């Protein structure tokens, strides 16, 4: 069985993230990057499936600029077997549609993939649409927002907890599954894992390797455009009182003054 986990290299969410002043794309150079935290759950789930079965191979796949292979490195340290980094200057500013198209081509090139595991969203763009778009390109089932996953033979069974109901879904492999942060607790790379990762193979592919025209991806080919980016003014702190036995009453008084009661 071959599992591909999608790993995205994102600007650290705890840092001061910003946009490129010229083209409104996410500034990926001025802020330290790392593996999107939500993708760690996908890597962990792949490792759990591998540990429970025989002959499971895990390929970590990322698309991003130079440096994005740091996301692959983390996945390899956690235990993935090999990595693929799709990198090409023409990809700068690609939207979700182009990203899904490129990732679908890479998964097809990897070949004989049974399961694609992804996080529920990236921690930067956060659209959550790439997994479903990928499935649409590949003609596969997609189950998103998965909190519990079982692989048995050629079927996956997944539980997803929605607003109005909890659903159990069955899908035939190959399939694309996006998991939430409720599904497991991602491991930290062990010393052994960190050492082993140095010897694991990482391939670097360009658009030409995937047979994709540069003109069809990147910022100029995007299907939507950012018009304006405005930094939200910092919230100014209001009144803070210390509870001296009357904190609840003061709170109620504030709510009443603001017409909430």
């Amino acid at each position: 069985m071959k599992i591909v986990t999608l790993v995205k290299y994102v600007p650290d969410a705890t840092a001061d993230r910003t946009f490129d002043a010229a083209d409104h794309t996410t500034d990926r150079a001025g802020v330290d990057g790392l593996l999107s935290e939500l993708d760690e759950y996908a890597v962990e789930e792949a490792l759990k499936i591998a540990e429970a079965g025989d002959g499971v191979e895990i390929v970590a796949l990322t698309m991003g600029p130079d440096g994005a292979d740091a996301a692959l490195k983390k996945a390899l340290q956690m235990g993935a077997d090999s990595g693929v980094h799709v990198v090409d200057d023409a990809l700068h500013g690609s939207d979700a549609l182009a990203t899904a198209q490129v990732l679908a081509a890479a998964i097809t090139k990897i070949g004989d993939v049974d399961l694609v595991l992804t996080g529920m969203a990236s921690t930067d763009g956060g659209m959550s649409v790439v997994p479903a778009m990928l499935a649409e390109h590949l003609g596969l089932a997609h189950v998103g927002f998965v909190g519990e996953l079982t692989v048995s033979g050629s079927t996956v069974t997944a539980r997803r907890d929605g607003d109005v109901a909890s659903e159990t879904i069955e899908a035939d492999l190959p399939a694309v599954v996006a998991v939430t942060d409720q599904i497991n607790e991602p491991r930290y790379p062990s010393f052994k894992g960190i050492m082993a990762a140095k010897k694991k193979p990482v391939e670097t592919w360009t658009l030409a390797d995937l047979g994709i025209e540069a003109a069809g991806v990147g910022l100029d080919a995007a299907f939507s455009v950012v018009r304006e980016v405005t930094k939200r003014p910092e919230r100014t702190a209001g009144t803070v009182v210390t509870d001296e036995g009357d904190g609840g009453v003061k709170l109620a008084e504030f709510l009443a003054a603001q017409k909430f009661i």
Partner: protein
Amino acid sequence: MAEILVLVDHVDGAVRKTTLELLTLARRAGEPAAVFLGSGFDAARDTLGEYGAAKVYVVEAPELEQYLVVPKAEALAQIAQSSGAGGVLLTSSPEGKEIAARLAVKLGSGVITDAVDVTADLTTTQSVFAGGYTVTAQVTKGTPVITVKPNAATPEAAPATPAEEKVAVAFSDAATKARIVERKPRAATGRPELTEASIVVSGGRGTGGDFAPVEALADALGAAVGASRAAVDSGWYPHAYQVGQTGKTVSPQLYLACGISGAIQHRAGMQTSKTIVVVNKDPEAPIFAMADFGVVGDLHAVLPQATAEIQKRKG
């Protein structure tokens, strides 16, 4: 005027409030046309008309309820193509985004998610980077597909008598690959839906696992209850109520954060709330920096007193 399609979010015909918000936004950009997929249309007809649907497309097929998302995306794609729609609006829920993603690929159209406003020319406003930035954007190719967050607009009635059109859809093989084998409706709490509520009271690590004071205050205010990731990860409250980057994003009129320190993960989910009230034992908690009103104190003492005072004032 081009039709702006609104995918109706409903449970057996009970239309959710977000759909009324979408109809209100759609009216700015064109002629609102509701797309009702699944069973129960009789229960939805009057509501859709009351909020201005000039037309309703109805697709009834067992596949829509038996399989995940793809039949809905195929039905919507067919209607968008045959009607020559000027845009498609959906709710920004996991399902809404999955449908939007597949629809955008099928139509060869751009997609924008998590809009908090949509103008007459379908320019969207989004809040990004944990609420740190506001971005306006526009789809430039194909039929704009836009998912809109709850509370993006106040539903405005605009009574219309919608023309009804039943649509037959021939689903592809790809539509039946993910089977829904079980569906357990969530037990009703009697409280407003978290993402739709105008007041949210959330509890975090400071509750120590006891959400009773949080729930009591929520009920006194007619509010929804939320929880921080720390509280959810500790197993104190279900994930469906988690506010934050990996849970729900809320933007209510009033947000009360009780025993929550205010990590970026949580702030991402509530930063755009209009008024923020904080109760926390730790005066150094970063969340105080964004509070309009804060009480440094133990929520187990402050909340019950506030609840009692609110009940007294309400008589």
